[in-house]
């Protein structure tokens, strides 16, 4: 019961952070804007992984939805000339969600390593198909048309800023929805499903259906992230479906932890920052740096960055418990 009170400050804090990030847009240098946009686009994919993670499921193929979201945006613009960013992002999310819905009938029956490997296999199929499709640029991919916003066509700096704001808006909507979802019956069933599926079934809920829903939610989030990333980078290629991309998302999920919605965003930002700096200062060893960060996280923060908050809370509550 105390929990329901402590959620409110977290939401207010989240809202303030988003508003501050949006307000800071015009002041930030370009490279920070583009880094943050990519980080926050990827954070959506991570948030989807957190949804699965809580139920004990790890997907090593989340890049599938990321890639679908990206290619749908790129292809819509290319084939129909339709370039409205907001509509394209939504179409990307819906397309990935639809694929997740179809795949979900299969995936929702598997757990643990089988779930992870099957999702990996499916993403690699898409990778294989894209690599062999020469009309879509094969391994080189192709570039994405410059997006517009309700007819407004920004260029240069303003384009980056516009996409930054769009990403923030989509992230805020996703964060609110997922925070709500985690407190709903379906969302709260994640730990019970991990613990004891039999009991969940006997309480009158279909575990398969709950997991299917989670697969679709994660798929939509993956598609939204991919769509935003495609527009931000201005280019799509089959690597977006490759297993290393999926691995990167799982990496950030481990880094962030599954305790808090906000952790997905902070984790993704930290990851993107570490990667950029490591790449700039140690081009030969940037993977080594990332590996070290992951190792230290697992050793000292096994529940991710988010667990810093719960540790702080516990420390505040500890003296009260002592009395």
């Amino acid at each position: 019961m105390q929990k329901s009170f402590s959620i409110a400050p977290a939401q207010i804090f989240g809202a303030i952070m988003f508003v501050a990030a949006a307000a800071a847009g015009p002041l930030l240098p370009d490279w920070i804007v583009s880094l943050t946009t990519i980080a926050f686009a990827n954070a959506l994919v991570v948030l989807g992984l957190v949804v699965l993670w809580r139920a004990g499921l790890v997907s090593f193929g989340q890049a599938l939805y990321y890639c679908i979201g990206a290619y749908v945006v790129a292809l819509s613009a290319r084939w129909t000339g339709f370039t409205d960013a907001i509509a394209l992002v939504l179409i990307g999310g819906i397309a990935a969600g639809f694929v997740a819905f179809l795949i979900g009938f299969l995936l929702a029956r598997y757990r643990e390593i089988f779930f992870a490997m099957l999702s990996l296999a499916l993403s690699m199929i898409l990778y294989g198909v894209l690599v062999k499709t020469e009309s879509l640029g094969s391994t080189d991919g192709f570039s994405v048309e410059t997006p517009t916003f309700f007819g407004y066509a920004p260029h240069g700096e303003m384009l980056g800023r516009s996409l930054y704001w769009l990403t923030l808006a989509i992230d805020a909507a996703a964060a609110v929805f997922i925070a709500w979802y985690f407190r709903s019956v379906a969302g709260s069933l994640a730990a019970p499903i991990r613990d004891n599926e039999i009991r969940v079934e006997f309480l009158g809920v279909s575990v398969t259906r709950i997991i299917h829903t989670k697969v679709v939610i994660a798929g939509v989030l993956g598609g939204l992230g991919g769509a935003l990333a495609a527009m931000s980078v201005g280019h799509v290629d089959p690597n977006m479906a490759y297993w290393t991309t999926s691995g990167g998302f799982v990496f950030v999920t481990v880094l962030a932890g599954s305790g808090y919605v906000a952790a997905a965003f902070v984790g993704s930002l930290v990851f993107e920052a570490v990667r950029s700096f490591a790449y700039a200062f140690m081009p030969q060893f940037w993977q080594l740096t990332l590996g070290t960060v992951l190792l230290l996280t697992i050793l000292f923060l096994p529940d991710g960055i988010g667990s810093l908050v719960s540790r702080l809370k516990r420390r505040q509550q500890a003296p009260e418990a002592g009395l």
Partner: protein
Amino acid sequence: MTDILAVRDLEKTFGSLVAARDITVSVPAQQTVGVIGANGAGKTTFINMITGHLTPSKGAILFEGKDITGKPSREITKLGISRSFQVAQIFPSLTVFENMCIAAAIASGDGGVIGNIATPVKSAAATAEAEATIDLFQIARYRHVAANVLPQGVRKLLDIGMAVVGGPRLLLLDEPTSGISIEEKFDLMNVVMSALKARRITVLFVEHDMEIVAQFADRVLAFYDGTVIADGSAHETLDNPKVQELISGVRLKPKPGEEAARA
């Protein structure tokens, strides 16, 4: 008043193995029915058919006059039949309160995909129901204890509490006292049975301890070789020579008079 549960000519075969046959039983509302029989006599098969875990090969099951034969278990749960398990089925990583809250929230929802997303788990109604059930089963002092460190008896009470929280009309208890020490069995059953009486729930419970059966059952069904060989008051069934011959443990039961004298 119509019977809450009516079972007719129920049969379940697995290939050539007959697990249950010719079971015809009617249970009036709010009766407490003990189910006895050796392992493999068909007790759990009988329960599993009522809860929809197994589909009968033949026969019909009516719940409150409605045919539920072969319906999926989730649908049957929603209709008002609940069960507990021989081994307590709880969520070890959650606290007692969270366990109960989840059960209450699910019971209050419609079970649909959208409904489950739209309903908050800690709604006022679900929280109140969870608290009331925790009090009813006298496990309030364990409210914020994680379920994986609970004593065995409390795990059982939580398990049964989670089955009761949705307000079922019929509850099937599969060996509620298994794994509980002899000293604690009667205390546990006292708490459970008075809670179920308070909620006016009809109970079918499988039990191997004949003293428990004699004390708590209004009526006893004796299973042997897949069918009911005796059906009557606890006294009638337990004194039935056929039951005493075929089901071990029954004959050792002290007579009700002796028990009273001992107490």
